[in-house]
């Protein structure tokens, strides 16, 4: 089936290539949810592909105001007005000639302009003019049939509430239903869209984050935790830290394509250990990426240098990349998608997210946070990316509480770093709590972080270490 490419970032992907041509689609949502901008973004992108759109308004804003608002967006171009973007006032026909003339007017406009896309904004306003539901229903069915023979892809925009989407007659005839809505989180007013129905094409269900910027609409598809994500090939290779004793404890290193949690209290060296893992990969020609949500890039590089590790040459040749994302700006839905984008584009072999505690603090809904990490973990496994999540353990002397959200359940390997008291001294110990498919060493080993790197020392024999 031929598709109308929307040209909107990631939107065509969740629609398996675009919106089926000649389909009738309803764009619903409350005022300010972004319905009109979404459709206008589509039609201006389509204009660049040579497609013509007929935009009919009913009782909404005037063309003057609409054009003024549109000028804010990069997708807008004056050149298309009157040529690829034809504006018409359906409201005047409704007011002066009544509802029975609407079909005839639409047909005449289509004959005159022969558009590829027809938009009625707002369709809900037409519904309100009809005397009763029965008459409106008959009109809706006639409209759908009349528009379909003219080979136009139709967008009907309306201020519908979610509960109306299953009740009103126009939704029965629609081939596609897109519902836009907002939701407040701690720091962000977020926008979501859901595709409730789309005949003739596969589409990604669930809520997808979108944002409106000067570029127009940008969609961040939901990362799915189920389905295909569960199937991935397990590889037998191992990836080490380049710390002999630790790699021996892990029987050669972390299994390729697994997720490892490094949990520890503040100052235990979680970030240093994770970076050492990437540096070892870089030395072997593998690509590594650090997403730092806590330390800016310069600070991170300084810390690495203080351990005597050379990373500049790897940063220069692209084997290592460090990105800082401010936790203040962290938006889990958006960044989960962007992380997969970066991993895919750079063909990353080893990834470090430092730390997932920042994720945790950016969402209200703990279940949602777990779902995202689960989904992210699955996507990374499918791509055979060997990943380390660092997590802050706020209880400095407890090794057992790995994370608040029980993220440990979804990881393959867990390395804990903790403090212990020993003769009025505070020492650091490292232990491997879990290493799936590996006969790992069960000892707690003392370690030290020096200007020459990380040294794993001997086994620390202290009773009650796990209390």
């Amino acid at each position, binding site marked *: 089936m031929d598709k109308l490419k929307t040209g909107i970032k990631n939107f065509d992907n969740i629609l398996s290539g675009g919106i089926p041509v*000649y389909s009738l689609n309803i764009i619903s949502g409350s005022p300010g949810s972004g319905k009109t901008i979404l459709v206008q973004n589509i039609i201006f992108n389509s204009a660049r592909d040579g497609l013509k759109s007929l935009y009919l308004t009913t009782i909404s804003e005037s063309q003057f105001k609409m054009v003024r608002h549109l000028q804010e967006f990069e997708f807008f171009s004056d050149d298309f007005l009157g040529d690829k973007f034809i504006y018409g006032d359906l409201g005047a026909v409704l007011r002066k000639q009544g509802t029975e003339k609407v079909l005839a007017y639409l047909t005449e406009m289509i*004959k005159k302009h022969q558009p590829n896309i027809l938009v009625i904004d707002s369709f809900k306003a037409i519904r309100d003019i009809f005397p009763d539901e029965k008459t409106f229903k008959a009109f809706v069915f*006639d409209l759908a*049939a*009349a528009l*379909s*023979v*003219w*080979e136009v892809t139709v967008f009907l925009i309306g201020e519908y509430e979610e509960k109306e989407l299953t009740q009103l007659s126009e939704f029965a005839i629609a081939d596609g239903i897109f519902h836009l809505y907002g939701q407040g989180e701690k720091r962000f007013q977020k926008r979501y869209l859901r595709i409730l129905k789309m005949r003739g094409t596969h589409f990604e269900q669930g809520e997808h984050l979108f944002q409106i910027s000067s570029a127009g609409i940008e969609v961040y598809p939901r990362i799915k935790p189920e389905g295909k994500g569960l199937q991935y090939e397990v590889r037998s290779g191992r990836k080490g830290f380049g710390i002999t004793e630790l790699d021996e404890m892990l029987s050669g290193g972390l299994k390729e394509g697994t997720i490892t949690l490094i949990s520890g209290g503040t100052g235990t060296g979680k970030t240093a250990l994770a970076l050492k893992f990437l540096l070892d990969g870089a030395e072997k020609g593998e690509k590594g990426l650090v997403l730092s949500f806590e330390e800016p890039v310069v600070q991170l590089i300084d810390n690495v240098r203080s351990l005597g590790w050379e990373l500049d040459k790897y940063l220069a040749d692209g084997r290592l990349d460090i990105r800082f994302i401010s936790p203040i700006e962290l938006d889990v839905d958006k960044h989960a998608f962007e992380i997969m984008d970066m991993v895919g584009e750079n063909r990353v072999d080893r990834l470090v997210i430092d730390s997932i505690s920042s994720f945790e603090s950016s969402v209200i809904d703990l279940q949602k946070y777990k779902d995202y990490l689960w989904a992210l973990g699955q996507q990374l496994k499918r791509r055979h990316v060997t990943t380390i999540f660092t997590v802050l353990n706020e209880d400095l002397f407890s090794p057992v509480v790995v994370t608040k959200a029980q993220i440990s359940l979804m990881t393959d390997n867990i390395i804990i770093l903790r403090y212990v008291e020993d003769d009025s001294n505070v020492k650091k110990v490292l232990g491997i709590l879990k290493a799936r498919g590996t006969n790992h060493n069960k000892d707690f080993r003392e370690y030290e972080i020096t200007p020459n790197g990380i040294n794993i020392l001997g086994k620390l024999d202290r009773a009650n270490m796990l209390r």
Partner: protein
Amino acid sequence: MNDYVDKRIERFETLLKEIWTASEKYLGTFSVKLLVERAVWDLSAEYREIELLQCDEGGISCAEIAASVKKNPNLPVDEMFTKFITKYVEILARLVGREKTDKIVKKLNEEFGGISFNL
């Protein structure tokens, strides 16, 4: 000569009725009527007389075209109807898919061996 043209129009009318019936199964009467109106509009710039093709819920009729031909015997009847049917099946193919339309085209080619209605 007139008898010959009348018979040709009659034959096209029979064919159009068969197309109408075949399309109705997929689209329903209302949509078929709209589709005929669309094809008429598309072709009317070339042959004004095609606008005389009548259709309603009861079916399709070429009576007014036949009457018009008597006043204008030079009207290329075969060409006009062939183009109309071709246009109709082209639009139909785009709307309902090639597979379903192929059945109609096959029937047309069987009925009108001398004229090819290829998509």
